[in-house]
């Protein structure tokens, strides 16, 4: 399985990442991707910008582990994860998870698994700048619930 994991302060073009995934890989029948974008509104507050902090080294390691776990659960042909850090503006891509497989069910399952675990396991933290000042984003219990779903079921 091809793997690519990138953490970067530079903006990325989701469109370029997509092209790299299935090119020259004629066994790939399905590519499912998740793109997380910065919204201009969070819990009713207008957000002007966002700063993403991470734990260098551990963040890469956590993402690699999540990708390996997905590859053990489903037959995958390629996975690409790109995560921004640093300063972001509304509409900026934050994260892109892209999974290529022979069949669509496996690709859907693996893509959602990776983003669900990324949200609860990978050491990234968001700070929002609003008109009322800045604050750290609180972890959402929803995200924990999404992760826990995967333990209760077997989607292989």
């Amino acid at each position, binding site marked *: 399985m091809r793997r690519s994991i990138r953490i970067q302060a530079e903006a990325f073009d989701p469109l370029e990442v997509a092209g790299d995934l299935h090119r020259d890989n004629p066994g790939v029948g399905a590519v499912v991707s998740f793109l*997380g974008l910065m919204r201009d509104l969070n819990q009713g507050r207008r957000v002007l910008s966002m700063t*993403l*902090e*991470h*734990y260098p*080294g*551990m*963040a890469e*390691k956590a993402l690699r582990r999540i990708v390996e776990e997905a590859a053990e659960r489903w037959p995958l042909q390629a996975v690409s994860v790109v*995560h921004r850090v640093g300063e972001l503006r509304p509409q900026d891509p*934050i*994260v892109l998870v892209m999974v290529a497989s022979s069949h669509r069910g496996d690709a859907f399952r693996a893509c959602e698994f990776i*983003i669900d675990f*990324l*949200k*609860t*396991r*990978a*050491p*990234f*933290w*968001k*700070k929002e700048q609003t008109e009322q000042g800045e604050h*750290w*984003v*609180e*972890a*959402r219990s929803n995200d924990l619930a999404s992760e826990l779903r995967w333990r209760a079921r077997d989607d292989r």
Partner: protein
Amino acid sequence: MIKIRYFARLREHLGTADEQMALTPEIRDLAALTEQLRRRGGVWSEAFGGEQSVMMAVNEEVADAAQPLRDGDEVAYFPPVTGG
């Protein structure tokens, strides 16, 4: 010596990003280290007093309080993650 790193809200609250600490025989695990930090008082007892949840890692792997510590370890404390 061990290295201790703090991230995000915790880093700001404590006013420090990292520190070096000599590993004494009493600090045998993460629970003991956390208790030692809490006893510093002020922002330290606020941060480690249990009001807000704190995650811990040793050598870049998430760890729990029972995790033993060895010389040269890198310990990290941080709030629940919010990436993605």
